């Protein structure tokens, strides 16, 4: 299947990548699924967006997407952030697939930095954009050494870091990209999602795929897989909690963004997951600032 552009100059294969490349990426994905949490090297291609801007996620999505898929792209939980828009438009153009902002109807969700609040279902694929796939990178910069550490399950250093946090701050001071152990074997970087989202990865019904384009790695968490955030028995893993509910939809127990209202310290907290927030408001939930927001949106 080939997509022709209007000017007739350039032609692209369906979903941009040629079939050979897609097969190569699919093999990497299958290997990743077979060895949950293991980083599979793949021959990442140059994409028409910069490295570090989601090229890994884009390649994974391009390799798994079909004409009948419905794609949702979020960045920071929102469908409308510029990079999400850009990637969504890219696939709308090169794969002519249906796009959506609705978490429930999407068959593929590509994300940067968040996992949707709504529980994902069987059959859905969540594709993460990953900048640095190596959880040990900032403890040991050498690839040759970290690969050996993974191979031999030498993860003591990871706990040394957590130990240092507690010794220094009285609690673990890692707030995002919080390392997890997958299926009792590989320590994995969940990409820079806030640790708030870590529990959603555990025993998820959806398939989770991770693509790091610049670093040329793919890894995966198959559905119903054990994903445990590293911690100590006496300092168990905890997620962030917010005192206030969302100012627009009054939701509790969701991740909130802080929005600065003026230069006098005024601020509000609203859902980072825009789709979730909108659905709740449609369902009649009202936060204390919801009226104002409706007015300005006109």
């Amino acid at each position, binding site marked *: 299947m080939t997509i022709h552009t209007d000017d007739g100059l*350039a032609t*692209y*294969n369906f979903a*941009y990548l*040629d079939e050979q490349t897609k097969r190569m990426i699919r093999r990497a994905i299958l290997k990743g699924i077979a060895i949950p949490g293991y980083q599979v*090297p*793949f*021959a*990442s*291609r*140059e*994409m*028409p967006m*910069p*490295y*570090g*801007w989601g090229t890994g996620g884009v390649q994974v999505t391009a390799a798994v997407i079909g004409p009948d898929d419905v794609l949702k792209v979020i*960045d*920071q939980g*929102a469908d*409308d*952030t*510029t*990079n*999400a*828009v*850009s990637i969504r*438009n890219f696939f709308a153009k090169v794969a002519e697939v249906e796009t959506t902002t609705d978490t429930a109807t999407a068959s593929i969700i590509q994300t*940067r*930095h*968040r996992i949707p609040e709504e529980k994902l279902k069987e059959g859905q694929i969540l594709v993460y954009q990953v*900048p640095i796939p190596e959880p040990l990178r900032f403890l040991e910069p*050498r690839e*040759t050494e970290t690969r050996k550490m993974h191979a031999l399950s030498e993860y003591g250093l990871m706990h040394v870091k957590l130990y240092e946090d507690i010794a220094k*701050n*009285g609690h673990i*001071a890692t*707030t*995002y990209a919080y390392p997890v152990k997958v299926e009792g074997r590989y320590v994995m970087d969940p990409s*820079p*999602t*806030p640790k*708030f989202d870590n529990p959603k990865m555990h025993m998820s019904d959806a398939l989770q795929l991770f693509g790091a384009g*610049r670093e*040329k790695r793919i890894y995966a968490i198959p559905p119903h897989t054990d994903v445990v955030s590293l911690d100590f028995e006496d300092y168990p893993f905890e997620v*962030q909690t917010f005192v206030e509910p969302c*100012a627009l939809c009054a939701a509790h127990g969701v*991740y*909130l*963004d*802080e*929005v600065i*209202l003026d230069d006098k310290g005024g601020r509000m907290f*609203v859902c*980072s997951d*825009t789709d979730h927030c909108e659905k709740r408001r449609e369902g009649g939930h009202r936060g204390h600032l919801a009226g*104002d*927001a409706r007015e*300005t*949106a006109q």
Partner: protein
Amino acid sequence: MYVAVKGGETAIRNAHRLLANRRRGDPSVPSLTLEQIAEQLALACDRVMSEGSVYDRDLAALAIKQARGDLIEAIFLLRAYRTTLPRFGYSEPVDTAAMQVERRISATYKDLPGGQMLGPTFDYTHRLLDPALAGDEEVEAPESHESDETPVVRVSDILAREGLIENDGVSESEEIGDLTRTPMEFPMNRDTRLQALSRGDEGFLLALGYSTQRGYARSHPFAGEIRIGEVDVEFDVPELGFTVTLGRIRVTECQMVNQFQGSSKAPPQFTRGYGLVFGQSERKAMAMALCDRALRATELGEDIVAAAQDEEFVISHSDNVQATGFVEHLKLPHYVDFQAELDLVRRMRAEHAARRDSDSDSDSAMPEAAE
């Protein structure tokens, strides 16, 4: 008041319109033609072809125009185009001994068969701005002579006859690696390493090469030979049973000759650092040769003491398309993670303040601080 970020799509569209406008500049000034760029900014095209890894002067010119003269952006455009190209096969290694040379110098011999040829070089020009160039002055036709078609022997071949320099060497593996098709893994073989260096960022390699000269992994280099000229690209067609020439490309080759004391495995002899890039770019080819030699430290049993010898460090950071993408990605929204850090810092500050308060409470003799 709070406005949900809904304008993303329109904002992007408008930004790109503005970009197109700024790229064109003042419409009363004639638009640059690709021919003008290819002909008059030829070295910019060479760099874009070389680091973009596509030998196509017109596309390079187009990329430079589209990128408003930002060469790394132009390289990126060319690379993104390159990945979509189907791969027919691999050409035969180019034979630089058979090069039709336009420039050829050796720093190791005063004179040598084939002679020293300066060619079109900036060397020995006095770097004085030339006001005449602001206009469109006629330029004198260059001196030329008929090429006698005899190949110009390479300095490395002259040294090799006496066994003074190591051989070209054979690839460590059966097949030559392809950086763009197989996942990069360390340690690398020299073939893939040279590919990475050849498309590596000129500035980065220049700085690293320079560092080796200043004592960070000193390797006593001599510029054995630098040659610039055209070589045939040949392709072996199995169906035909012979190779066919696809065309000619212009390349710059640099062979650095380095002292080597010998090791338990090899006798004392000169070793080589190798640089080969598309187009005319001596600076890049020389820097590449210095880096190549420095990166052979492990192979030659030398101590790794400096950044330029560290394969993982050099190769992981030499690609400017990767580097610029990741550095610039910092401008993408990170507010979800920032929120998490904000929360943590606030909490830690509160704990800190609480600790301080309880300390000062217990110390009742302390006078109240002014509020």
